[in-house]
């Protein structure tokens, strides 16, 4: 692990996990982290960038997450931009998520079994005028839990 300094300016410093480096444990940083190697464990940082050669497995709390590499575990973020792959049993919670559309035959992100909780809870905007009298207007949830949304006709 190294601290790289983009010139002499302090604000440009970032923690770099270089390719071929593997880190297990807890890493908490006040500067951005760039992962070209592998991290397993708990991670807290304002900004995390994972390159195509990088992998982060574990529990991550981050402001901005940009990944072109491999993600697995639990990710809490403000903004997420994804390409690369997301492994099984991964949960991503974010205010915003961006996955760009790639051209035919090319996959921007390979998803395993993944849970995405992004933005506000989707609610049935028309439920009020369509629901049965007296029925509670619950927010729907994945897997059918509470998913009625008051929409029964």
């Amino acid at each position: 692990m190294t601290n790289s300094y983009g010139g002499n300016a302090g604000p440009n410093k970032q923690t770099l996990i270089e390719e071929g480096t593997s880190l297990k444990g807890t890493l908490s940083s006040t500067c951005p982290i760039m992962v070209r190697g592998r991290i397993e464990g708990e991670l807290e940082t304002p900004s995390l960038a994972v390159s195509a050669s990088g992998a982060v497995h574990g529990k991550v709390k981050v402001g901005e997450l940009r990944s072109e590499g491999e993600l697995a575990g639990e990710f809490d973020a403000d903004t997420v931009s994804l390409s690369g792959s997301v492994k099984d049993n991964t949960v991503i919670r974010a205010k915003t998520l961006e996955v760009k559309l790639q051209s035919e035959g090319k996959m921007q992100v390979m998803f395993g079994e993944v849970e995405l909780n992004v933005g506000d809870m989707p609610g049935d905007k028309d439920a009020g005028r369509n629901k049965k009298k007296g029925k509670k207007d619950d927010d729907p949830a994945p897997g059918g839990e509470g998913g009625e949304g008051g929409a029964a006709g």
Partner: protein
Amino acid sequence: MAELTREQVVARAKQGESLAREELNGLDLSGTDLSGADFSRTDLEGVNFEGARLDGTNFKNANLREAFLSSAVLTNANLEKADLEGANLSKANLTGANLNRATLEGAKLTDAILTSALLTNAQLDSAELGKAMLDGASLAHAELVEAYLGGANLTGSDLSNADLSSANLEEANFRQANLSDAELAEAAAPGANFEGASLLRSNLRSANLEGCNLRDIDGRHANFSDTRTAGATLTGAKLFSAQTKTGRFDGVIAEWVDTSPEGTGTKRVSGDEVAAFLAGKLSEVPTATRYFGKGDVLRDASLEFGAGSDVEIDSRFEKCKIVLSEGTNLVIGEDGVLSECTISGLGNITIHGQFLERDSPGIIGPRLLVVSEQGAVAGAVEQAAESTQFAFAPGCSLRMKILRARAK
């Protein structure tokens, strides 16, 4: 006649003295080490640099006409605006060299290594670049008229706006290269590999593309008129607005082509329709469109949409079962709400409105699922057997479980 001897040149270079603007034409400097020397604006016409070490040497604006640079090491050399007309650079190593605006007309670059070299606006008309390594090179706006690039490796290179008219590109490798707005009229490229290359708006009129690998090319708005493509592979090519009508596409191999304006794969033609599309007759093939307007409510319905049809829903659907055939485009408009519905099949789904499931998974096996910034999905998505392609715009709301395809 040279003003300095070979020994004097080597000695001055060693001492770090500039050799700029000297008259050194016709000198034999073969096998010397002149790395880092300054030959800017120097007259080096006909100089023999065979096997010389010229790493990082400055030849900016130098006259190197008819110079012999075979097997020379010119890595990271500065040859910007140098005149290399008729020079012999065969087997030279020009990795990372700057040849922007250099004149290389008729130059011999056979087997030269030009990996990541800068050749923007370079004049390479009639140059010999057979088996040259040009991977990652910048050749934007370069002139390559009648150049020979047989077997050359141009993987990932930038040839945007380059002129390759009547060039010989046989078995050259243009994989993932950028040839947008390039001129390729009457180019001979039998057996060339263009897989994944951008040929956006390029002109390939009367080009020979027989046996080419054109898989996944971006040929939107390109001119393929009067091209010969027998034995070429065109599967996955983006061909929206391409001029293919007068091309000879007999014997072309194409399982499907992408006809979407944005080249996103959301519209494609396959099977027999490909030939009709290439012949410019596809407009005669009707595309079924279904529209469900705002304010309508549809309950407990089963709907099945045929291959290639376009479906747009601005209504409210409740407890409906929707089956999409392969290539069907389903758009849930901003006003559309699908509540407690299931969507299955290998279609392309774009959600600007809402999809709220009850039974899990609510979406089964789509080829493509796009959720726009206004879109919301609460539910599980079971991916297609060959994985589903996802796109999510910032601002969308998701409570989504992504599941792998289940064995049927």
